[in-house]
């Protein structure tokens, strides 16, 4: 299948997979590139690439300062995330449990290439469901609080979600998302979390673990194609690409392990999408026949539809010229993400509630306080 990308998307992906081509970018190309990269949280990544490829002196000064600004922000957020993790481990020091770091913080601990350029706002952790209540009350005693939630949102998290309402320490601002499984409870995916904990790998700091490489890859794909709405999630697909490249070099049997594990966890279809689109967009070197090992795979029609929709949603819209087709694709994928997350009898009231709330928010003039 061929990829049909708009001009501005091509420009973004070219810069990411072939940074040397950036030397041919005009000033107006650069200006647009920065806006697009920022929109999909890849400004920090772009900065790392420009430096790594020795292009820093060829970048227009106004662009260099924006790249610097982007990387400073990324580094600050990563520092805040590491400190928050440090505090969580301190707070749970006496409690014997198993904590697995997820997403950005995990990529940093695993020293995945380019993890230092990843914009990670929240701290994501996975804990055993049996310990969840104890962990939550311990953290509450030591100063973490839930943000004020509507009764509906509270119920949403408690009954249907794979995480509890976000926690924030009273003295800090970093949001801690504590998960007890990897996909919403209402979704058709039933993930055996025990298998993940059994395979988890300890880090230098004994109290925090990482998902095994194959599980880390699978979670990345689940998060992108199951939990998110895919709009502007190019960063997450690039995460997947980075993980695949890094682990496949380290372990000759990686691809076999990955496909076996996806089949075992019954996440084959999602892993298929992950491999397919990572290869299609970022030219990930996925071995030829490896996808055929995944069972079940999406049917031809389904894949054709996803093929039309996913790139339109993953890539940012042109900031000055948004297109209707991209907006439609995003809307369809928004509905899809909800449909696979929850059955219709939950979904319909949920969407009605969300729509009503949006209208209420829009009509109340504004509650923010711009400086």
């Amino acid at each position, binding site marked *: 299948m061929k990829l049909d990308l708009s001009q501005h998307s091509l420009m973004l992906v070219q810069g990411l997979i072939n940074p040397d081509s950036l030397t041919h970018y005009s*000033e*107006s190309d*650069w*200006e647009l590139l920065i*806006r697009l990269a*920022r*929109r999909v949280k890849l400004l920090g990544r772009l900065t790392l690439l420009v430096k790594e490829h020795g292009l820093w002196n060829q970048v*227009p000064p*106004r*662009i260099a*300062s*924006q790249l*610097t*600004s*982007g990387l*400073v*922000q990324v*580094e*600050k957020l990563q*520092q805040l995330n590491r400190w928050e993790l440090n505090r969580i481990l301190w707070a749970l020091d006496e409690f014997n449990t198993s904590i697995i770091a997820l997403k950005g913080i995990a990529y940093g601990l695993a020293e995945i290439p380019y993890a230092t350029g990843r914009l990670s706002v929240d701290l994501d952790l996975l804990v055993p469901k049996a310990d969840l209540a104890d962990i939550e009350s311990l953290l509450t005693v030591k100063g973490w609080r839930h943000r004020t939630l509507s009764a509906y949102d509270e119920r949403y998290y408690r009954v249907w979600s794979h995480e509890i309402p976000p926690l924030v320490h009273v003295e800090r601002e970093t949001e801690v998302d504590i998960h007890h499984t990897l996909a919403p409870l209402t979704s058709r995916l039933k993930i055996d979390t025990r298998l993940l904990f059994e395979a988890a790998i300890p880090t230098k700091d004994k109290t925090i673990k990482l998902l095994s490489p194959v599980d880390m890859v699978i979670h990345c794909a689940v998060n992108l194609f199951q939990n998110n709405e895919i709009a502007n999630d190019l960063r997450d697909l690039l995460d997947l690409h980075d993980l695949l490249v890094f682990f496949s070099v380290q372990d000759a049997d990686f691809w076999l392990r990955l496909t076996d594990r996806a089949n075992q966890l019954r996440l084959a279809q999602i892993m298929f999408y992950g491999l397919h689109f990572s290869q299609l967009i970022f030219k990930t070197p996925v071995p030829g026949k490896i996808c055929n090992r995944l069972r079940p795979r999406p049917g031809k029609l389904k894949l054709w539809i996803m093929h039309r929709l996913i790139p339109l949603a993953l890539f940012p*819209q042109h*900031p*000055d010229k*948004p297109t209707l087709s991209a907006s439609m694709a995003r809307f369809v994928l928004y509905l899809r993400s909800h449909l696979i997350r929850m059955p219709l009898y939950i979904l319909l009231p949920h969407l009605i509630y969300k729509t009503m709330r949006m*209208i209420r*928010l*829009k*009509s*109340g*003039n*504004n*509650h*923010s*306080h*711009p*400086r």
Partner: protein
Amino acid sequence: MVVNQIPFREFHLLLLNQGLRVAIGPFNVCIHTAYKPLAEQLYKLYCHYRMAQDEIAEFHVRIVTERSFKNPFKKNVRFLLDGQSPFGSFPQEQALAVLEWGINLAIAVRVNHLLLLHSAVVEKNGHAILFPAWPGSGKTTLCTVLSNRGFRLFSDEFGLMDPRQRLFLPIPRLMPLKNESIAVIRRYLPEIVMGQSIPNTQKGTVAHVCPPEQSILLSKQAAKARWIIFPKWIAGSQSKIEAISDSEAFMLLASNAFNYEALGATGFLAVADLIHSCDCYKLVYSDFDDVMDMLHKLMNET
């Protein structure tokens, strides 16, 4: 090319089509709007700004109009930064205030290659004077007076410091006078160009003052800071200036900055060095002439 060198028609067309690019200190801002009253106000108040149509713009902002949800016969305006809306909609009369706040917000959340102190800055004889203060301490009012009485305006809001060269960069923006300050300034400086008063904003009534032409023309000339003065306007007070310790000044300055924490060690070293090279004071005042006497005395002492 400066804004007042082109006719309004051309100015308006730029705002409508490819965007008007103006140089505001070290940044270029690209502005779009189809709302004509805003175009007219900008034409008047941005008249001295340099146009930068062929240069890279760091900020792409837009003011769009939309129907109010509550009252379909009323129009609201919304600020967009790269197509994203960071805050809600406002009555259309507030368009200029919303645009100016929006640009400030964009600078405050995005710029990290410079240290952003929350401070008014003016310059005289090559030395920058910082007036760091919380909102409501009267820094905009003080800045308006000083910049029209022989001091060069850097900013009424952002102390923009290059952390390596330890230089302050001018970023002369419109100065939004609030509430009683508007009448005070009209009385004290009857000659200055001021936009229309915009009532009922989140900060009360606001009227924008155009920075002096000289301040905009010279906005590429950076300067080192020599004095840091924490001002506080108290009605009817006897003007008083007293030196404060370096450590107190450090805490006041660092705790009232936009991105001091984000810059980490770079920010710490820059602020430490800044405090070290400046004389720091606290100022209480109610009379502008007193303040100018005090400033001239400070400057003559060195």
